[in-house]
C-alpha cells in the first residue's frame, strides 16, 4: 500500500510540474514577445544576476530597496545620496548609471568636458550590504554560542549549536589541529572566521530572494580579499626558515647565484597560492550560479520553437536546475571547507622550524 500511494504521489508531482511549466511558458511567452524587438539579451540577463547592483529588489514585486551611493568625483569631493535618485537612468549631482561600455551597470560621473568617467566608488551596494548582513548573522550566531559555552562548561550543545559545533569540530578538530599541531590555537580564530564567513555568504547566495541573492563568493573582489588575508597571515607569521627557503633555498649554488632561478620560482610559488585560492572559490561559486541561470534562460531561448519544445525544455530545465541547486548547496560547504583547508595547509607550510628539518 505505501508503495502505491508513493507512486500516486509521484505522478501527482509530475503532473503538477508539467502544468506549472506550461502555465509558466504561456505566461512568459507574452513577455518574450514584447521583448522581441530588442530580443532577449540572455548574456545581459545572466550578468545582471551575477553582478553587483545599487538596489535590492524585493521578491514578487517591482519594489526596489534603494541603497546609499558614496562616490568621490574627479575634483576630490565626496557625494552621498540614495540610489533611488539614479533610477531609470536619471542624473544626479553629475552622476548616473551607465548601461554601455566597460562600466555598464556602474555609477559614472560626467566631467566638465561632458565625458563619462568612473569615480571612486565606495557605495554600499547590494554585495556590500550582504557582507554586512553576513557579518551580523555570524555575530548573532556565535556571540550567544560563546556565551553558552562559558555558561555550560564541559557540556555538549544540542540542537542548533550542536550542529554548528559539528562544523567547528570538522574544521578545528579535523583540519586545523592535525595540520598545524601546536600552532592550532594561534591560527584557529582566523581560519574559523574564514570558514564560517565563506560558508554563510555561500548560503546567503543560495537564497535567491531579498535577504540573500547577492553573488558574493562568486565575485572576484570578495575572493581576492579573502585570499589576500590568507596571504598576509601566511607571510606575516611565516618562520625564519620559511623566509630563508623562499629567498635563499638550499640548492646548488649555480641555481641561485648568478641568476636567482630558484628564489624566483619559490616566490612565484608563494604568490600562486593565494591566486589559486582566489580563483578556485570564485570559479566554483560563480559557475554554480551561472548554470542555474543558463538552465532557466534556456526556457526563454527555446520559446522561439513553439509551445511543445518550450514545455519540454521547461520540465527538463527546472528538474536539472533543481538538481544543480542541490549539488550547489553541497558545493557551498565543500568550497568553504576547501578554502579553509588550503589556507591551513599553506599556513602550515610556512611554519617550518629548523630543528624539525634536522630530524628528517
Amino acid at each position, binding site marked *: 500500500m505505501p508503495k502505491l500511494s508513493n507512486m500516486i504521489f509521484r505522478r501527482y508531482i509530475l503532473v503538477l510540474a508539467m502544468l506549472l511549466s506550461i502555465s509558466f511558458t504561456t505566461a512568459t511567452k507574452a513577455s518574450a514577445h514584447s521583448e522581441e524587438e530588442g530580443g532577449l539579451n540572455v548574456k545581459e540577463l545572466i550578468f545582471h544576476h551575477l553582478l553587483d547592483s545599487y538596489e535590492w529588489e524585493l521578491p514578487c514585486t517591482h519594489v526596489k530597496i534603494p541603497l546609499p551611493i558614496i562616490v568621490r568625483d574627479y575634483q576630490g569631493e565626496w557625494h552621498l545620496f540614495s540610489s533611488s535618485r539614479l533610477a531609470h537612468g536619471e542624473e544626479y549631482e553629475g552622476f548616473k548609471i551607465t548601461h554601455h561600455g566597460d562600466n555598464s551597470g556602474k555609477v559614472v560621473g560626467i566631467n566638465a568636458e561632458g565625458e563619462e568617467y568612473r569615480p571612486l566608488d*565606495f557605495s554600499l551596494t547590494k*554585495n556590500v550590504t550582504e557582507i554586512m548582513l553576513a557579518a551580523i548573522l555570524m555575530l548573532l550566531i556565535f556571540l550567544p554560542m560563546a556565551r553558552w559555552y562559558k555558561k555550560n562548561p564541559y557540556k555538549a550543545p544540542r540542537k542548533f549549536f550542536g550542529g554548528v*559545533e559539528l562544523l567547528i569540530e570538522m574544521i578545528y578538530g579535523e583540519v586545523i589541529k592535525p595540520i598545524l599541531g601546536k600552532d592550532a590555537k594561534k591560527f584557529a580564530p582566523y581560519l*574559523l572566521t574564514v570558514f564560517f564567513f565563506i560558508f554563510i555568504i555561500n548560503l546567503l547566495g543560495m537564497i535567491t530572494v531579498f535577504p540573500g541573492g547577492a553573488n558574493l563568493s562568486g565575485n572576484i*573582489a570578495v575572493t581576492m580579499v*579573502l585570499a589576500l*588575508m590568507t596571504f598576509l597571515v601566511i607571510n606575516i607569521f611565516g618562520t625564519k626558515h620559511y623566509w630563508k627557503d623562499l629567498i635563499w633555498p638550499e640548492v646548488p649554488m649555480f641555481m641561485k647565484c648568478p641568476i636567482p632561478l630558484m628564489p624566483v620560482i619559490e616566490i612565484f610559488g608563494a604568490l600562486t597560492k593565494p591566486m589559486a585560492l582566489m580563483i578556485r572559490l570564485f570559479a566554483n561559486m560563480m559557475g554554480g550560479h551561472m548554470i542555474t541561470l543558463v538552465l532557466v534562460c534556456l526556457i526563454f531561448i527555446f520559446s522561439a520553437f513553439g509551445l511543445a519544445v518550450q514545455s519540454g525544455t521547461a520540465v527538463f530545465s527546472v528538474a536539472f536546475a533543481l538538481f544543480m541547486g542541490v549539488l550547489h548547496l553541497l558545493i557551498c560547504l565543500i568550497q568553504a571547507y576547501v578554502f579553509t583547508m588550503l589556507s591551513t595547509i599553506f599556513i602550515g607550510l610556512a611554519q617550518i622550524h629548523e630543528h624539525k628539518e634536522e630530524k628528517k
Partner: protein
Amino acid sequence: MELFKPELGLSFWLLVVFVLLFIVTAKYVWPAIVKSVDERADLIDKGVGYAQEAKKQLENATENAQQLLVDAQRQQMEILREATQMKNRIIEEARSAATAEAKKVMDAAAISIEQARKASEEQFRAEVSGFALQIAEKLVRKELSDDKSQKEIIEKMLEQLEKQN
C-alpha cells in the same frame, strides 16, 4: 569582462567588515569555543582513561577476590581436615583414657571382689569349721559314751598319725 575585474569599493568594504568581524570573533568567540571544545575533549579522553583503568582494576579485583575465595576454600578444607583429625585424635584419646580408667576400675573391682571373696571364704571357712567343730564335738560326745567305739577312734587316729609320720 566585468566579472573578472575586482571592484575597489567592494574590496574595501569587505576588508573593513572582515577585519572587524575577525577582531570581534577572535576576542570573544573562538578562544572560548575552542577552549571549551578542547577541554571537553580532554575531559572525555580522561574519562575514558579512567573508565578503562577502573575496568582493569575491577577485573584485577575480581581475580583477586576469586583467588581469595579459592584460598579461603582451601584453608577451610584444611581447617576442616585438621579439625576432623583433632576430633578423631581426641576421641581416640578419650576412648583410650576411658578404656584405661575402665580397666583400672575393673581391676580395682576385681581386687575388691577377690578380697570380698577371700574374706567371705575365710568367714565361710571359719563358720564351716565352727560348725564342723560343733558337729564334731557333738559327735565326739556321743561316740565317747561307748568305750568300744572310743577305742576304735583312738586306734584310727593313731594309725593316721603313724601313716603321716
